[in-house]
């Protein structure tokens, strides 16, 4: 217990990360609430492991704790790439229980959800600092990508030199605008997809293997 064990663990984790090239990379799935992170995580996990990662919902902040699926083996061009995927809570700068009241939620539940969501953002930011080797950044392509949250997170990811893929999700919807996302983050590759329909997942897997393999 305690200090020394913790220190030792963290040191060995750091050295593992540095020297064991074949350890699976831990890929954080990040993005604003409701972008489709969990839908994507579930699709990846189902495609390659048969399991799901967590519940999806049209109500924002469905994911309020980071969830991890380990040893997801993705096969691309005769090569197998193993990653751990971490589905994180949607990141935002404001959480207001009132937005949940529209979803037929009692005030008590809405307040609790909002508190948990806030804790979830703290957890997501913490993971970004300490525990991910790469990022899949998911955006809802029907919404404006020029937000403070996106700018700040992409900035942090860049400052950490983390490999990052930007996914323009929900291309099945009429208002989808992939180009706007590509314009917002020209320094990164933007891949269109529909995590819900499974459209363009082949390219997503190819890029995952390329970036995080």
């Amino acid at each position, binding site marked *: 217990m305690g200090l020394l064990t913790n220190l030792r663990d963290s040191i060995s984790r750091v050295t593992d990360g540095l020297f064991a090239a074949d350890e699976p990379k831990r890929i954080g799935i990040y993005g604003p609430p409701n972008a489709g992170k969990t839908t994507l995580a579930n699709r990846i996990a189902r495609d390659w492991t048969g399991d799901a990662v967590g519940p999806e919902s049209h109500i924002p902040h469905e994911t309020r704790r980071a969830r991890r699926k380990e040893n997801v083996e993705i096969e691309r061009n005769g090569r197998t790439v193993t990653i751990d995927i971490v589905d994180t809570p949607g990141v935002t700068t404001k959480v207001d229980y009132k937005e949940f009241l529209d979803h037929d939620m009692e005030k008590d539940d809405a*307040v609790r959800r909002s508190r948990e969501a806030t804790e979830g953002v703290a957890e997501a930011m913490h993971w970004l600092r300490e525990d991910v080797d790469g990022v899949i950044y998911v955006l809802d392509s029907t919404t404006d990508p020029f937000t403070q949250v996106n700018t700040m997170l992409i900035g942090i990811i860049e400052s950490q030199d983390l490999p990052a893929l930007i996914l323009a999700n929900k291309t099945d919807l009429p208002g989808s605008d992939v180009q706007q996302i590509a314009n917002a983050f020209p320094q990164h590759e933007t891949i269109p997809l529909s995590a819900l329909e499974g459209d363009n997942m082949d390219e997503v897997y190819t890029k995952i293997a390329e970036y995080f393999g």
Partner: protein
Amino acid sequence: MPHQCTTCGRTFPDGSKEMLSGCPDCGGNKFQFKPAGATEDPSADEADQASGSPAGPSGSAVDPSDRTPPAPADEPAPDESAADRRPSESADETPNEAAASADSASEADGTEQIADRSDEDTAQASARSEVVSPDELDRASRDVEPADAPPAEEEPQPGIDALRDELNDQFESIRIVSPGQYELNLMELYDRQEYIISLQEDGRYVIEMPDAWGIQDE
């Protein structure tokens, strides 16, 4: 001393590096926020009761069951017992006696705040002492008068507001606008080593140090 180990009660100044790898005294890795200016004065107890009404309804909404233990468990009950206690106890106690009884009194309050695995007493004592009356805040800022007068019980609202302000000053990563409404400073959250596991409406929170927490698999 804004942070306190929930296991042994040791306190740390804000920004202290000492606690980053666990409490040097007991190895504990859960700390809670303790605004500067909080005192062991029993009047803090009354500020706590006063804050019970605005914080209560939302506080009771905390569901610790799906959280990393130990998570805070808020129960409405302590509020009632605290209210019962007040007229008899605080009325006829001298400040010293009141201070001596603060520990037992804190038990009711403490359970309201922290359901910890061990050493509940210290955690409770700190939970109680976190809350400052408006009077104390005032005094602390002028830092002259001794804290012997009873607090202004008739003004509970400024107390929670002052506390919130103070918390927001010291802990800028999460601003509690009102119960259930938060503003987050992402950069600040990212920069902080420690990981917040639990927020409470009255300005308390419990944080956990990096190596101690795990995440749910699958």
